[in-house]
């Protein structure tokens, strides 16, 4: 990380929150004789502030890899990810020192996957309340915010004191989403947050996500669900084999009839 320099003169067009250029990621498996697995092979992407950009494509196309590179869970090999911070500075997330990246994650860049990773021995409401406190919400206010968001994702109140490990898969996903958005981050990375939801609960989650952008968050998402993409995304970027193969509004891209999801 630290061998990359960080120029002070990074710029970003005014309306953009995030701008990715020639992003490359390969996985070198040292345990398998250094075998190389190609992830991203030169991705360009611009995300405007307060917009929802959906990544689409088949399994293995690089969608999650891209989200994880932005979040720095994966280390990109080349390319830049310019991001405008809340105070207005433009930084390259690929070269930011770990501690600064950790601060950004704590304050403004959130990542929600389909898997709940909650601390053990904590009730559902407590998990979400603590997430709010960690994101800087007032301690007194956090419990109320947690209650509100749990209601919105339709977690029954009689489950609030239950340990998340005892919940169903769909309930876990909703608790995870609730913890990720109880304080809306400026940039929210959503990695298939609703893969295990029944239609009624999916509807609720889609409304909650739509409301996030309405309230000023910027979202980059992966949904294996054309209906969710159509209703939520301002822009769709299609990935295949680590390359961008198409981009446009959901209507345009879907009309071009690309196979976005495994049938």
């Amino acid at each position, binding site marked *: 990380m630290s061998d990359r320099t960080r120029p002070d003169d990074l710029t970003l067009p005014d309306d953009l929150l995030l701008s990715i250029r020639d992003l490359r990621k390969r996985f070198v498996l040292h345990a398998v004789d250094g075998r190389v697995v190609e992830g991203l092979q030169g991705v360009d992407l611009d995300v405007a502030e307060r917009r929802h950009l959906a990544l689409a494509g088949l399994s293995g196309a690089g969608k999650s890899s891209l989200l994880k590179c932005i979040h720095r869970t994966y280390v990109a090999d080349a390319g830049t990810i310019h991001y405008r911070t809340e105070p207005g500075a433009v930084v390259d997330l690929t070269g930011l020192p770990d501690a600064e990246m950790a601060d950004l994650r704590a304050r403004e860049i959130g990542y929600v996957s389909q898997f709940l990773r909650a*601390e053990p021995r904590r009730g559902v409401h407590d998990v979400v309340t603590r997430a709010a406190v960690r994101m800087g919400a007032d301690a007194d206010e956090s419990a109320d915010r947690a209650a509100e968001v749990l209601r919105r994702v339709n977690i029954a109140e009689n489950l609030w004191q239950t340990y998340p490990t005892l919940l169903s898969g769909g309930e876990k996903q909703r608790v995870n989403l609730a913890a990720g958005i109880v304080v809306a981050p400026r940039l929210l990375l959503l990695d298939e947050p609703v893969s295990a939801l029944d239609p009624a609960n999916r509807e609720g989650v889609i409304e909650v996500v739509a409301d996030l952008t309405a309230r000023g968050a910027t979202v980059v998402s992966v949904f294996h669900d054309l209906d969710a993409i159509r209703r939520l995304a301002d822009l769709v970027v299609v990935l295949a084999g680590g390359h961008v193969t198409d981009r446009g509004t959901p209507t345009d891209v879907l009309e071009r009839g690309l196979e976005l999801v495994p049938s």
Partner: protein
Amino acid sequence: MSPHTQPRQRGMIGGTAATALAVERLGKIYGPGGPEAVEGTGPEFARSVSPSTGAVIGCWDVSFAVAPGEALGIIGESGSGKSTVMRCIAGDQSASAGSVNLAGVDRPGGTPADLLQLAPSDRRALRIDRLSVVYQDPAEGLDLRVSAGGNIAEPLTAAGWRHFGRIRQRAADLLSRTEVPLDRMDDPVLTYSGGMRQRVQLAKALANDPQVVLLDEPTTGLDASVAAGVLDLIRDLLEETGIAAVVVSHDFSVIEMLTRRCLVMHHGRVVEEGLTDQLLEDPQHPYSQRLVGAARG
């Protein structure tokens, strides 16, 4: 030379993270020879024993900084040097090279003091109220023949507390915070379970609100369910107090739960550093990949 201590600063100062603890190029050589003995050791040579002098290189060229309120992990197998790093910072062992700075501990004139150059008495003084250690083995951090209350009274009296009632009250507050039943407070620690001993160590470590706490395998050797409870407590304490922490463990679940950044050590060297989730999901160094692969099956 005695260190000039200044009021502590916590949290963000002027928009940039302050540093609570800074370690620069720390090295420890057991045996004959100076820096030249290091030649031919390390991960690329797959050995920690100097080919020229036979000295064991405990750790070498280890650098990191920890901000107030931040927890940094050090992970590696036994023998990787992670505990050596901790003991050199704590002053339990003398380092062979490098420097260690603690925020607010300055030389006359205001430049940061190098802890490694302080007189032994000054170093011991730092352990009273600025730098605490929680050891894997409670027998190292506690006098097992003495009561929990007595163990906690020790750093308090060293820090100048004199009033018996207030010392006792403070000890009781700390023990209830670390979930030790107060009706056991006057029993010798020897009569406590392993999990409770660790809770007493935590209470003692926090007695004088230190800036930095070093945790060396704090839950290793405890039953899984007891370990989970102690981890939970440590996490709460770190979040509440804003103490800077260094957590040494061979166990990824401990590092994952407590830290957001960590170092991977192997043969006495840092082979990789990164955000904790990155090291778990996208380890770069062959050794880190092997370590994660072994842990995750």
